[in-house]
């Protein structure tokens, strides 16, 4: 079941950014394809969930409508 709490997605985004900041100092990790894909996915997925949630919320609408039913 999908997590409908935006704080969860915000936490994921923060974790993704923190990991990126950490690996930025370690060249071998930074240029590792698997690590790069994982971190990128973490950031992008969390970011788009937040965009979806908050932009619907700003219109007074529930993005998670189907999942809450």
């Amino acid at each position, binding site marked *: 079941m999908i997590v409908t709490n935006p704080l969860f997605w915000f936490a994921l985004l923060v974790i993704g950014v923190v990991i990126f900041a950490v690996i930025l100092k370690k060249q071998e990790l930074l240029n590792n394809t698997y690590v790069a894909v994982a971190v990128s996915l973490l950031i992008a997925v969390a970011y788009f969930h937040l*965009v979806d949630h908050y932009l619907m919320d700003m219109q007074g609408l529930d993005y998670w409508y189907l999942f809450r039913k």
Partner: protein
Amino acid sequence: MGGLTRKKLWSIVALGAMIGLLLLPTIMLLPTIMSLPALAGGGGAPAAGGPPPDVAKPADAAAGKDAGPKVEKGRDVYYKTEGIVTGAPAPKTADNSQFYPRYNFESRVLLWFANQQHLYYGSFVLAVPIFCMIIEFMGIVSKDRAMAKKYDQLAYDFIKISLTAYSLTAILGGILIFTFLTLYPAFFGYLSSIFRPVMHVYALMFVAESGTIYIYYYGWDKMKEGLLKWIHVSMSVVLNVIGTVLMMLANSWIGFMMSPAGVDEQGRYLGNIWHVIHTALWNPLNVHRILGNMAFGGGVVAAYAAYRFLASKTDEERAHYDWMGYIAMAIGVAFLIPLPFAGYWLMREVYAYRQQMGITLMGGLLAWLFIIQATMIGILFLSSNYYLWQALGRMRGAEKYQRYIKYMVFVLVVGFLIFITPHTIVMTPAELKAMGGQQHPVLGNYGVMSAKNGGINVIITTTVLTFIWYMRGNKLSTVSWAKFGNIFMGVFFACAYVNIIWLAIYGYYIPANVRVGLSVPQVATTLSCLFFMTALNGVMMRGAKQMGPIEWGKISVRSQYALIMLATAFTWMMGLMGYIRSSVRLFWHVNEIMRDNSPWAYTHTTGFAANMISFNVLFFWVTILFVFWLGTLGVKKAPVEAKVPIPGRAPEPAVGH
């Protein structure tokens, strides 16, 4: 020394004259501003449901014992505030030659033609100075002297085209006024009476615009260095401010015709000109038009460059016009990308203002025109992408992207086909029976907004991706995190596509009142790609290794036809959207205030409208070609001097000024 001082003196005089011209309308506007009830009384926005204090005061005084002549009050049809009636009611016209003089021709078609031509030229001459401002500024801040000179020459080329078109715009404006006065005297008289407080401002702004553009153009050579150059570029800012205000004033008329405000239900002016100007649709129209004008202007200039490219005799000329076409196309497309979103906002406000109006537009009488519009938008984006793919061919190192183009074509075509799928189609009873209903069992699913929003956002995101590939075509990032950056960019785009498509599918499973909001995160997803990925690409490409120079002029001829196609599609779409916006009033001159009782107050067939639009487009292009030709007459040959080719740069412009 003396020469320089004289130049400075003349520049300062010119600037003073320009500021004077700019201030003149403001001074002339002062009596109008002072007469505004809200401002004169120091009050703010009137509260809904009750008269504003400054309006109520004279009314109260009138109601007192020593009241003078009785003051009649009316209620604003939109703002719902009360105001003192200061105008005559909208005329009740009848189908006779007093209100609608006859000239053995459909008056509406004549007016349509005059209006459309004026609008085309008006849009062009408002957009091009904005280009000049941007390009001239780029030239000033450029550290590369050769590039600075090229930018300066390009800005000059742009304004030169604009100047000839400017005269034609003024002539067409005059023709338009005469057409109104001759064919629709009652309507024009009423509209003029409503906008009387700002009519003179419009005229004076036009004078200021003319003065500024001439000083700007003729002062180019005299103000080409140092502080004077900055003064010159500031003049372009002033020029564009005037142009934008002019456009916004003109928009207030069409805004008033569609969504009147500041008048009572009989159409009587209530003394607040700001209410008349600031109607429900004014701001969306302003934003939509300024973006549309820029995209259109970019298209026309790109077509001009393509025409000159195709007619070029030398490689040097070809290089210059190839570069010019690219810059114009890039500016045009930069404004094309947000244009659908501005259009969406406008439609949203139309629905908010009158739901029926929105339904007439997108779900009723005019819905088929929106299918044509969708087709045109698709053509615009396909042409832009095609041009950029062709342009990759003039860069060494860009070959690596060529193999992905076929996938992008696939994505674009799928998005395009979904975007243009109609909800229902016109059918014979036999066809209806064979299909089992009004909607096709499979394709019918794509005829709803959920799918269409997905389709257009996929198209725009793909265009952004093409642009980014073009920007990095001949470059190799040298930053230490280049691999991570590339992967991040790929993942971000992939997730954006998934999010857009997911939201489109999700829309089918939730109620309409929730579904309608999904378009906003879809747009935000596309804009995230545009802003974040362009910025990321810019950072990654800073100090990048050049794989080879951009070989300006070495581009296929097909690409130039794509530019001409782009410009023609812009022109056609502008004509179409203007017709749609105007037609939505149906049988009203001013919506729900002044009825159109002429014999032509009906909606034309789609076929007739398309023919009329095509005629307008053809006429515009024939006349603008004449303008282009005139522009070439004044070109002097560049002085013959030693030119050192700079690797990776286009040769110096072939024309001088």
